[in-house]
């Protein structure tokens, strides 16, 4: 009595990132086009390749950071330590460069490693000590800030970016395509692969849906959660490295403006804040959406008050369009 109806939906057979039919992602991309169309009423420059490339470049910083955030959100957690993980990444990479040629070479890995250390504390707190991520990451953020204040005050660290950092953020290896964009594309591709093709990715979705069941299936859920937080810390720090390369130096406040946009980008991209559901392509859309929105409001010289209100209204409106959770019945 094989009742197994084997009508297979062809769309589902595609790898996850090609689920072009996901209505949330499609709508998010539609919103991007809408936004550009709207911007072009103000100035046709919004459609110029320079402007769009510039947006993609700037978006890639947020994109790198949001990748880590997405991973953590897929687990049903959140990482509020992004601001100072970004700053630590940028500052420590620059600081390492002060130590001769070896420092130059190790600058980027060192910055990332520092971010991983923050992620490790978050991960241990969430996975092994079962502290809610919302609070442990808040605390590590405060500790990271404290460390950087002590450090800046005590060591007058070098804070100019190395040539390599600058090249990564502002150079372009492929003509016309900023390296930052290439980097985001690579990180994105790895993320898609990780999420859809590996046991790690499956485990992330599984834990996000029901950690207890994942654990009883023999998955070391605590290690996966910890690793996810480490990755998030690393990517935040790497975002900081790129940002420092972009601005050619690091500063304490450089991560402040990335926390809420990172969360918003992930969720606008259709990832459930409760975990277990979401695709990377959506996050890409979310990141571009947020970056464009901010940029267009800036260029239109919207006063801050109006900018905030429009920002809020647009996010609510877009979520109402496609980000609604299914009804209980």
């Amino acid at each position, binding site marked *: 009595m094989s009742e197994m109806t084997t009508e297979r939906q062809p769309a589902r057979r595609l790898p996850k990132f090609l689920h072009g039919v996901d209505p949330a992602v499609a709508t998010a991309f539609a919103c991007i086009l809408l936004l550009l169309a709207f911007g072009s009423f103000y100035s046709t420059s919004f459609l110029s390749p320079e402007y769009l490339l510039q947006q993609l470049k700037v978006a890639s910083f947020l994109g790198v950071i949001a990748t880590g955030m997405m991973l953590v959100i897929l687990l049903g957690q959140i990482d509020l330590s992004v601001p100072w993980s970004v700053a630590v990444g940028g500052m420590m990479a620059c600081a390492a460069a002060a130590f001769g040629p070896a420092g130059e070479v190790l600058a980027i890995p060192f910055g990332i490693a520092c971010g991983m250390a923050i992620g490790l504390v978050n991960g241990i707190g969430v996975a092994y000590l079962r502290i809610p991520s919302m609070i442990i990451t808040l605390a590590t953020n405060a500790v990271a800030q404290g460390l950087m*204040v002590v450090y800046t005050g*005590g060591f007058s660290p070098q804070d100019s970016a190395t040539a390599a950092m600058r090249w990564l953020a502002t150079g372009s290896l492929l003509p016309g395509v900023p390296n930052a964009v290439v980097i985001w594309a690579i990180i994105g591709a790895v993320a898609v692969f990780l999420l859809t093709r590996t046991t790690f990715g499956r485990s992330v979705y599984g834990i996000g849906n029901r950690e207890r069941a994942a654990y009883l299936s023999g998955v070391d859920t605590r290690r996966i959660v910890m690793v996810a937080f480490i990755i998030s810390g690393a990517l935040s720090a790497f975002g900081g490295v790129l940002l420092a390369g972009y601005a*050619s130096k690091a500063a304490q406040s450089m991560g402040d403006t990335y926390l809420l946009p990172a969360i918003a980008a992930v969720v606008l991209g259709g990832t459930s804040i409760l975990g277990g559901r979401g695709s990377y392509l959506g996050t890409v859309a979310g990141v571009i959406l947020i970056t464009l929105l901010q940029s267009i409001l800036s260029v239109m010289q919207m006063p801050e008050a109006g900018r905030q209100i429009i920002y809020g209204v647009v996010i609510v409106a877009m979520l109402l369009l496609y980000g609604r959770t299914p009804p209980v019945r």
Partner: protein
Amino acid sequence: EPEVVSGPAGDPNCFAPWASETKFFKYPAKEGPYRIALANGYIANTWRIQMIQTAKAYAAQPDVAAKLKEFKVVSTGEDVPAQISAINNFIDSGYDAIVVNAQNPTAFTPVIKRAKEAGVVLVAFDNILDTEDAINVNVDQKGLGVLWANWLAKHLPEGGKILEVRGVAGTSVDTDRHTGIHETFAATGKKWDVVEVLGKWDDPTAQKATADAIAVHKKFDGITAQGGDTGVVQAMIDAKHPFVPFGGETENGFRKFCAKFAGEGLKCSSAGTGPAQVAVAIKTAIAALEGQVVPQSVKLPTAIVEDPNFKEGEDFYPDQSDNFFVGNSFPTCGINFTAQEIMGQTKENQ
């Protein structure tokens, strides 16, 4: 309960009154040594860190240290009530004077009242207090805007398209500077097309805003920015925007660029005031406690360097951080910290 007297101040060179109608205070002289507290708010940027370092270094100078029984610093973060409570606590704990970098200019009225009743000298600096009941050590923010606009007008006698990178919306510093710029432009009678973006006194933010503005508006004839100047220049470089006259603040990184690209058209006016103003504030507090006459509002000299006068090792330091603010000495007050010294000082202490 200080007595309102007529000027001049005890040390007229250092304690210059803000305006001709500025009142002068004479507090009842107190026996030293004094207990002085610094109530700082926000702390997590280079300017503030440098400021705290300077305050400590100043209080440790032998002649100053001799006058102090205790010097305590507390940073309460961005929360205004926490800073108010800190001042309340200092008052209740019997400090003689409290120096404040106020998180909000208008929120301290009740505390000012309490300080007055308790006979505590209150001196505000950098972010000052909107009051005549406490001493303010003041930078002429509007004057900075005027200065920058004049600089641009000088280089662009026929007017032109200007990019104005503003600071943090809603702060008096940002508004004052902005007003200074626009009043000055208006007074020239020329045609100015000013594009405003928000840089939030932060390099990456200013850089992004500038990059966007350049991408859309293609070309500006002049630029003025408050804070984040290094980022603004960086954005021009990245976008291959030709260098144009620039009125900005005193970050070391900005001045490095100004010196380097002056020949290519980056004609800068770099003006502002450094974190060492905290030392002036402490000095004012001590003078007031000693019973000297001090102005209610002290006008700080502005450190200005303009093209072609950028001198290496004096106006900027190629080997030092981009982030620190160079205009950091007040010779008229005998305060001569170079930022380099401040940053170096504690390094030896470690």
